[in-house]
């Protein structure tokens, strides 16, 4: 009970998913604790519970041995909790000083006292040793300093618990050094600090303890000085659904090249070369933001190419819109099925028939009889668990929502289908069903690209694995040679110099 901040048996359930399961650990004052885990392991969910964004289903949070419960982010801020997100929450047209004092400006007679405000802001800036001026509008300073402003805002609120959610992603090495100095300063002042990151190097450089998450469960808490990178990676990836992959209906007949990309670049990815053959499953691995989704968007005609060319079944292929990609026989199951894949307020029937609605129409009129027949068959084929086809999709579990997306796209008989994080936020049972469906698609001769952040999944399903980092493909590994440490090292290790040579 001695830790300053304590989580006890925290559980968080979303419909159909257990996002957090029985989490118990604590953070001391003057300590930096890292949260480590794959995407979707539950790190962000826990932060969102801590800052009052979500309400946990059960369990307790203690601060200074007093039980607390936050109903809104505002309550959490008042209790001394600040979460610094990657997307900075600053007002870009206001000055540095105004942003630092956002929410509690210094006023005299109801007017903001700018002189006093700037002086006090300058004092904080000096304390942090930063070369910025309080009067400068925030949009004029670099991303790194904007983040510093965010930290000073938290500092000024006298926050005792400060959480960083992947703060270094947009920063350069020099800026990271400044950030780390500041975090160490906060630590020396006795703040309790939570640091979420994928980057092993930073975790070992900065933190005192590491909390490892996997699938919403706590895998362990380690003293940073007494653990090693391989040990942490092993804890992170765990091993509990390995058997699933041994029973998959594998396709052993790989056919001709379906899709080929030659030196393709877009605004986000650079110099992508790849081939996908009929019946082949190509896995895309890499960290979030490595350019996997962006490559998929280029193939699907959602982002324009800036260089390079694509061919589909040997013919030039340059889709200007998703519609053209679909007409050419390319389908995409997007990463965020709720935001991008489904119309949640419409029914299972309306969502399932969407891709082939044209075929179910006569002179623009929907043939309801045919549509119902088709939907009933899809529900059966893809084992969608729904009380009826008129159920609104929002009421289905994550796994069943994903099956609806799958059913929709498979109905158009695609030549190439791209799955972006097909099992994100889905429970283990539904996952194995979706793996089967992906393999079935390959068996039917469809070329498959599967983007996934789950290493076990990528290795278990793909025939070949492409690893991406910072918008480049860094490795092409056949399944037989793929191991988790090998993929992780290509996805995480700095190879900036090599890539610059290639690009230049």
């Amino acid at each position: 009970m001695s830790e300053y901040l304590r989580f006890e048996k925290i559980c968080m359930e979303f419909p159909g998913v257990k996002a957090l399961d029985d989490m118990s650990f604590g953070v001391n004052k003057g300590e930096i604790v890292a949260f480590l885990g794959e995407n979707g392991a539950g790190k962000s969910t826990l932060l969102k519970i801590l800052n009052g964004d979500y309400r946990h289903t059960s369990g307790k949070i203690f601060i200074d041995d007093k039980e607390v419960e936050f109903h809104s982010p505002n309550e959490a801020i008042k209790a001394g909790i600040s979460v610094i997100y990657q997307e900075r929450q600053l007002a870009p047209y206001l000055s540095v000083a105004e942003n630092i004092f956002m929410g509690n400006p210094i006023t005299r007679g109801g007017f903001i006292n700018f002189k006093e405000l700037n002086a006090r802001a300058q004092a904080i800036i000096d304390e942090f040793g930063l070369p910025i001026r309080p009067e400068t509008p925030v949009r004029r300073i670099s991303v790194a300093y904007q983040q510093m402003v965010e930290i000073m805002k938290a500092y000024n609120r006298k926050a005792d618990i400060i959480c960083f959610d992947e703060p270094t992603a947009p920063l350069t090495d020099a800026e990271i050094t400044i950030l780390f100095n500041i975090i160490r300063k906060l630590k020396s002042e006795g703040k309790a600090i939570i640091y979420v990151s994928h980057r092993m190097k930073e975790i070992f450089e900065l933190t005192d303890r590491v909390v490892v998450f996997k699938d919403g469960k706590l895998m362990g808490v380690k003293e940073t000085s007494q653990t090693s990178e391989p040990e942490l990676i092993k804890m992170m990836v765990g091993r509990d659904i390995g058997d699933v992959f041994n029973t998959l209906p594998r396709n052993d007949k790989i056919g001709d090249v379906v899709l080929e990309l030659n030196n393709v670049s877009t605004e986000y990815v650079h110099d992508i070369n790849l081939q996908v053959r009929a019946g082949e499953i190509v896995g895309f691995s890499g960290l979030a933001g490595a350019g996997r989704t962006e490559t998929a968007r280029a193939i699907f005609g959602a982002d324009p190419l800036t260089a390079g060319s694509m061919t589909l079944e040997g013919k030039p292929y340059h889709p200007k819109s998703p519609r053209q990609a679909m007409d050419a026989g390319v389908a995409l199951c997007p990463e965020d099925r709720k935001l991008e894949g489904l119309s949640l307020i419409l029914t299972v029937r309306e969502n399932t028939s969407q891709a082939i609605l044209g075929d179910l129409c006569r002179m623009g009129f929907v043939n309801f009889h045919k549509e119902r027949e088709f939907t009933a068959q899809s529900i059966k084929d893809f084992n969608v668990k729904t009380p009826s086809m008129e159920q609104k999709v929002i009421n289905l579990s994550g796994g069943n929502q994903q099956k609806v997306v799958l059913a929709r796209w498979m109905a158009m008989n695609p030549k190439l289908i791209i799955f972006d994080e097909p099992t994100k936020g889905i429970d283990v049972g539904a996952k194995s069903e979706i793996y089967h469906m992906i393999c079935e698609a390959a068996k039917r001769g469809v070329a498959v690209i599967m983007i996934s952040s789950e290493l076990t999944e990528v290795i278990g399903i793909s025939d070949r694995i492409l690893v991406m980092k910072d918008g480049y493909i860094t490795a092409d590994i056949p399944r037989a040679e793929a191991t988790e440490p090998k993929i992780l090292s290509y996805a995480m290790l700095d190879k900036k110099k090599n890539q610059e040579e290639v690009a230049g």
Partner: protein
Amino acid sequence: MEQSTAKRRGFNFKQTLKNILRSESISLVLAFVVIVAVFSILNKNYFTSRNLISVLTSASLTGLITVGEALLLIGNHMDLSVGSTAAFSGVMAALLLQQGLPAGVTILTVVAAGAVLGAVIAFCVTQLKMSSFIATVAMQSIMRGFAFIISNGEGVLITNSTFLKMGNFKFFGLSFLTFPIFFMLLVFVLFGIILKRTRFGREIYIVGGNPVAARLAGISIKFTTYMLFIIMNVLTAIGGMILAARMNTGQPQACVGLEFDGITAAILGGVSNQGGVGSIFGAFLGLAILQGFNNGLIMLNVQSFWQNVAKGALLLLALTFDYIRQKNRQKAK
């Protein structure tokens, strides 16, 4: 095995009953019945065929607007310029007729003008990325201005008897089946079918419900948006001409606040102002409630200023219901 099927059937039956009771249409019909009953008690002349005809006639223009706004709202847009556009269309038709153009040519010209206007708004919304709210507020001022400019600020008399039939033609000589009433009912039925039964209708729901998903599903948001605004403005142009024919004049100051009535009726009828939800049948019930209520206030000789207050309150009430429905949808399990 048998038992479990029976059980499931029983459950389904109960569920069906619940759905009917919870269904929005039923509660709207009930609200309408209550309004009619209350006003009938307060005024003997309310529940008469003569008054019904007067309600239907005054609803004929609002009805066209309600259909257009309902479609736009489902597609997550709205058009606040229709009152001005209706007035402009009436004046334009009257002026063209004065120039000696035949009725048919006049009607087609004004309809084409409406379509162009709709396309202009859609261009602002899709290409210039304006919100439809702002774009159509601007258009409201522009069209009202033009209505006054082309008419020199005065009503323009219409004498073309063919054109006037748009206002007074009676089908089968029935006084409750005048052209305005018939056309409104036709538009409701037509777009009810289009929205529910055609691919275009389905795409309006998908675009309004989740535009990102719609684009990634290969639906052209641009096409849908253009069609929605063109439909709205063509209906407005026809509505404006029907009104001018009924009044024998094109009045530049007519139809102030018309968009307001259309939007209120649609939202009252269960069309969500967040897009993706609603039906034309619901919008029709919303229109019935709005018109029944307005007419009741007139029959009770309520001062017209208070009618404005009452209409505004009705819109707030409709939005509150919409908010409650949205919350229910989110937690529905």
